[in-house]
């Protein structure tokens, strides 16, 4: 059984807590001058998505979650599940809406995503940090406005809505930061 000591804790480390795989979001070291040291840790349960806080005595060891991160290519969605493929082994994976989480807003066919597997089943899909998507709907903006001030909502081909500058038009492609859901710039073909 692999374990991690509190000294190894950092954002992204995956632990097994009460039988569920969890990922560390934040880790803070707390210690009174004369007294016991603690690690106060914020984690996300990868099965339920719930965020929880746990406090460990510094120096304690915690069981590692036996998870693997794989780069998998998104193939299609059948209305219920999303299907991904490992381009080396051609093995396919079926992913449910829960594991897809926010990623559904950003990805389209052929995109390669980091997928976390637990006991060989996908439990978390992360969209690429940046994606390029076409605008399918937005109000016509003012011609010649390049200031970028203000902005307007625009619907992307995946259905996600982001704020874009007034000069951006339907049919244009834009680069988006998926972690913040923010427009970065226009992309010419």
């Amino acid at each position, binding site marked *: 059984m692999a374990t991690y000591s509190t000294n190894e804790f950092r954002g992204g480390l995956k632990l097994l807590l009460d039988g569920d795989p969890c990922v560390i979001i934040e880790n803070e070291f707390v210690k009174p001058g004369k*007294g016991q040291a603690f690690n106060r840790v914020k984690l996300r349960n990868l099965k339920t998505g719930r965020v929880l806080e746990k406090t*460990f005595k510094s120096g304690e060891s915690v069981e590692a979650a036996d998870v693997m991160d794989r780069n998998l290519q998104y193939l299609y969605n059948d209305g219920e599940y999303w299907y991904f493929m490992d381009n080396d082994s051609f093995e396919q994976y079926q992913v449910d809406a829960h594991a897809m989480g926010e990623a559904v807003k950003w990805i389209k066919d052929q995109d390669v995503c980091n997928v976390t597997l637990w006991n060989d089943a996908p439990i978390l899909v992360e969209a690429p940090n940046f994606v390029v998507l076409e605008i399918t709907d937005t109000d016509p903006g003012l011609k010649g406005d390049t200031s970028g001030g203000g902005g307007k909502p625009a619907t992307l081909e995946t259905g996600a809505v982001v704020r874009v500058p007034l000069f951006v038009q339907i049919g244009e492609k834009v680069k988006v930061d998926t972690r913040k859901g923010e427009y970065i710039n226009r992309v010419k073909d």
Partner: protein
Amino acid sequence: MEVCTPVLSQAAGTDPSIVPLHTRYTGPEYPRGLDLFLQTSPEFAMKRLLAAGSGAIYQIAQVFRDGEYGPRHNPEFTLLEWYRPGLDHHDLMKEVADLMSACLGQEIGMKKIRYVELFEQQFGWNPLQAETNQLEDAAKAHGIETGNLGHRDQWLDLLMSLVIEPTLGKQGLTFVYDYPASQASLARLNPEDERVASRFELYYQGVELANGFHELTDAAEQRRRFEAENHQRQQRGLPQLPVDENLLDALDQGLPDCAGVALGLDRLLMLQQGEMTLDRVLTFSLTQA
């Protein structure tokens, strides 16, 4: 008088919650090598000077503690430590408050509260008497999920650090005093209630800044406490540390009745500059050193 004592020592403090860094000397006098500890505070050497008749002394010292790194911790940090013969810890709290006002450039109010009262106000029970399950329940009620901590002092540390400390010193300086005797191995016991010791801590803006004692002067009692701490270390699977015989000899010679305090200068600078983390005020913290 300003003094400067060695950073390296053949002995170490035995406090089970403080881990000294160590190094090794090899050369004349010790051809086969000598293990040396980097000081975790200059307390023992300064008490030897006091016993030798130095009178009131202070120093600004680099000190070292293994395993401590975070927003408010760096394994190497700076203490201002001073001792006042003839004063007790209440006199010294007043002096610390005056220094804080001078350093922060404004008159800052102070309040004093006993450790026991602090817990009674927050949780409604007496920390000297509460059962371990009461401490566990209080942690749970404040959203703290943790495993079995074992010793009740560790539960008290948990509640102090995570629940009480962040709220202390918001309106001015808060001095907490009369700590459980089990948490003050270098302080004398309160003659009116021997369950508590004459130790104080200063908190300001939710940050622990200083720790002081009305110093224990009884050599035999000090030896018993060091040995008890080494016994606790053994129970927790920690290494035994060599007791500082030079300090015990000095106490035997006679340490004058005195109070002493150590104040974290890096944390003080952090608060003075309105910063939230130590790395903002250290030249190079652990990861850049």
